[in-house]
């Protein structure tokens, strides 16, 4: 079973490497949204520090929905998804491999580029650390929740827009606590621990339910 898991993970990463533009569109979208805000809102030090947590997270949410409709769509069109569901492995495991690949390609780059964002917004170094940490905890949740919606809308016309409508409201808890942690880290004496614990709880919850829910949704979409 594990060999099929690894071979699928490896295949998805290999496919992305052969189509690098898809990784970079997400990353550049994230950077552009983030750099537009100072131009529109003003670049005073205090304003930037105040809006930074929300802007980073909203940009991350939008960037991750951008890549969602590709998660299963290509496999669906060329028939490999059909073969995945017929493989003698649990579909949830296969779906989990795809989610991890998706996060490595769209979530992890956002975490790694976060220090640059910190510089844009004059954030103190410990806040940049916190930002990377919460992005590390939160972006997998985005990929996992997003996968459910992507599976549900598979094969529908205009599925891409529908995915955003379905998924953005579900991202709210991650947005609230993710941005809250970054804000809290800039205030003397506030602990960020509760935020981190809640985000970790979201991640565990998503880890347990999303592969199973996505697999069920895929079976319905394939019918």
């Amino acid at each position, binding site marked *: 079973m594990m060999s*099929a898991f690894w071979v699928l993970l490896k*295949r998805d990463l290999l496919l992305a490497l052969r*189509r690098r533009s898809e990784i970079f569109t997400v990353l550049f979208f994230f950077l552009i949204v983030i750099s537009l805000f100072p131009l529109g809102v003003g670049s005073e030090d205090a304003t930037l520090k105040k809006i930074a947590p929300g802007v980073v997270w909203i940009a991350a949410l939008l960037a991750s929905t951008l890549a969602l409709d590709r998660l299963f769509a290509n496999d669906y069109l*060329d028939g490999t998804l*059909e*073969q995945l569901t*017929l493989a*003698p*492995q649990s579909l949830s495991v296969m779906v989990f491999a795809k989610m991890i690949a998706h996060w490595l390609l769209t979530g992890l780059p956002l975490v790694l580029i976060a220090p640059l964002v910190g510089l844009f917004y004059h954030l103190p170094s410990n806040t940049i650390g916190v930002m990377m940490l919460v992005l590390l905890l939160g972006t997998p949740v985005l990929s996992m929740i997003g996968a459910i919606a992507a599976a549900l809308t598979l094969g529908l016309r205009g599925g891409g827009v529908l995915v955003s409508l379905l998924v953005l409201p579900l991202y709210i808890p991650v947005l609230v606590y993710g941005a809250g942690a970054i804000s809290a880290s800039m205030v003397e004496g506030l602990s960020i621990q509760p935020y981190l614990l809640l985000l970790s709880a979201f991640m565990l919850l998503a880890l347990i339910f999303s592969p199973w829910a996505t697999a069920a949704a895929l079976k319905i979409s394939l019918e």
Partner: protein
Amino acid sequence: MTLEVKNLQCIRGDRELFTDLSFQLEESQLMMLEGQNGSGKTTLLRSLCGLYLQDQGEILWNGISIKKQDEDYRRELLYLGHLNGIKADLTVLENLRFNATLAGKIPSTDKLMQALDTIGLYAFEDFPTSQLSQGQKRRVALARLLISKAKLWILDEPFVALDIAAVELLQSIIANHVDNGGMVILTTHQEVPLTSGKIKRLSLSEEQDNLPSSAK
């Protein structure tokens, strides 16, 4: 090993595709599924794979419902549909290796190359499949048959896009599988000559039943 279908019924929208369909398939048997376009051949094949849930009836593998055995059944099953199930950005060899590993085998490169050689893709192994012709892509998908250990092959129009030589090759691959105690269900308008084993025929065409109910 047996595949048994009992009173299968399938309705799509207000159209009854088939109803009360029963048959049994045993080792060394090949079943040709016949019927005009739109008579529900593909739907039946997808139901047999568990991809499509039938409205009524049962599909039993060795006497147990396929819904209950899930992975055990899928290990014995190889399905080739209208879509080839290969990735355009991967090379021929990578595609075959991925498909084989997914089916639970970790094949050696020698064995994969041998299969590609047999299927007529010698020297194409490092080509991205996007550069191949339609027939060659079909061959990449068919190469799975040579590696598979599955007992039950379900093939939906396997001869489409193949040239004469490839059709003959595929006929002999199928006959060989039946010879070795395998089972094959396929939809095609092409005859498959067998050296041993038995051919069954199932026809889905019953003129009146296939019309939308509003037309009756």
